Structure formats: structure tokens, C-alpha cells
């Protein structure tokens, strides 16, 4: 049973570019949440997707957008990259809303913006 998988593992982009990160949830999970983890900090909630809709959003600008597909996989898109977007991006999946169900985390995508 595969856990949460994310791709790519590492990514280097230039300021102003756009990036797409991908996540496949654990088998049987229908809810995907995305987090940004800066160095030395805890994960910060970006948004959560359930039934292909964004259900909850953290304090992130509109440059951060997402999508959930019918197979529950998800994408995180970031436009107009800034140096401050450099971080580890974590995907977590759960059976339902993140607050009531255990979240399983993926290994993350390390994004470096130069």
C-alpha cells in the first residue's frame, strides 16, 4: 500500500516563473492538504481539497492555487515565484477533514527559487 507520494523531489526555479507540484494521496484517502515548511519552522497550512473543491485556505496569496482530480490526486501551482517561496512543500492526505482524521504526510518537494 503506497503512502503519500509527491513529485518532483527537488526543484529549482527563477523568480517570476511558475511551478506545479504534484501529490498522490494514500490509497483510500479522498482529502488532500498542502503545507509550506520554511527552514526551521513548522508546516504552514496552504489549503485543503475535498471532492475536487478547495474547502479551506490558509493565509496565502492568490499566487498559490490548486486542483484536485477525480482520482483524488492534487496539484499545487505557484505563480510569479518570489525568493521567499523557497521552502519544503508538504502534501498530506486523510480520510476526511484534516481536523478529525489522521493526516499522512508525503516526503515533500524542496523548492528553491533563485
Amino acid at each position, binding site marked *: 500500500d503506497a*503512502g503519500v507520494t509527491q513529485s518532483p523531489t527537488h526543484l529549482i526555479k527563477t523568480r517570476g516563473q511558475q511551478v506545479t507540484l504534484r501529490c498522490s494521496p494514500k490509497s483510500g484517502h479522498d482529502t488532500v492538504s498542502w503545507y509550506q515548511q520554511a527552514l526551521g519552522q*513548522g*508546516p504552514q497550512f496552504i489549503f485543503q481539497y475535498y471532492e475536487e473543491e478547495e474547502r479551506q485556505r490558509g493565509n496565502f496569496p492568490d499566487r498559490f492555487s490548486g486542483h484536485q482530480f477525480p482520482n483524488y490526486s492534487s496539484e499545487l501551482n505557484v505563480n510569479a515565484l518570489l525568493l521567499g517561496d523557497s521552502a519544503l512543500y*508538504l502534501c498530506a492526505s486523510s480520510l476526511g477533514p*484534516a481536523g478529525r482524521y489522521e493526516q499522512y*504526510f508525503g516526503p*515533500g518537494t524542496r523548492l528553491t527559487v533563485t
Partner: protein
Amino acid sequence: AQSVSQHNHHVILSEAASLELGCNYSYGGTVNLFWYVQYPGQHLQLLLKYFSGDPLVKGIKGFEAEFIKSKFSFNLRKPSVQWSDTAEYFCAVNSGNNDMRFGAGTRLTVKP
């Protein structure tokens, strides 16, 4: 705004010492509370969680946490740590709106 504070940035203990990691949150309503652990080179994984009921919660690997509502705290404890407990520990709070807030984490180093 809802926030989570972990007061210890880095804790260093010898094996067999007792552990207590502090976690305080700033939300007055009903909350769900979690402790996650990240071992070196591994993913974040759930140690224990509290939703309701007995405020003393037992998790994996001998860890436990106590919810004290009056103090807005959810401290993590272990009576006797092992070298293998070396990891980063994160407290997280959810107020029921699916917005999980994590603390900054506490790095635990256990010396053999």
C-alpha cells in the same frame, strides 16, 4: 488569530531521562490537538491526538500528552527517552475548520 507555541527550540537529554515538551495554543473554542514527529530522513507521522474525553492521551512509542484546557496547553511527555527518540516534534491544533496550525517544532537530541 489562532496560534501554537512550542517554547523549547532544542532539547538535549541523556538516555533514560524524562521528557516534557511544552505546547500552548491561543484559541478559546473547541480544539483538536495533535503531536507529530519527524525522525531524521523520514516523513512527519502522528504520535498522538486528542479530540475529546480523557485529557490524558497515550500515543505510540510510550509517549503521552495531557490536555489542560484552563492553561491552553497540550504538553508531550515520556518517562524515559531512548536514543531512537531523537527527532523533531511538532504540536498542531485544529479548531474544527480544517485549518491545521503547527508550532515551530522542538528538536530533541538524545545522547546515548
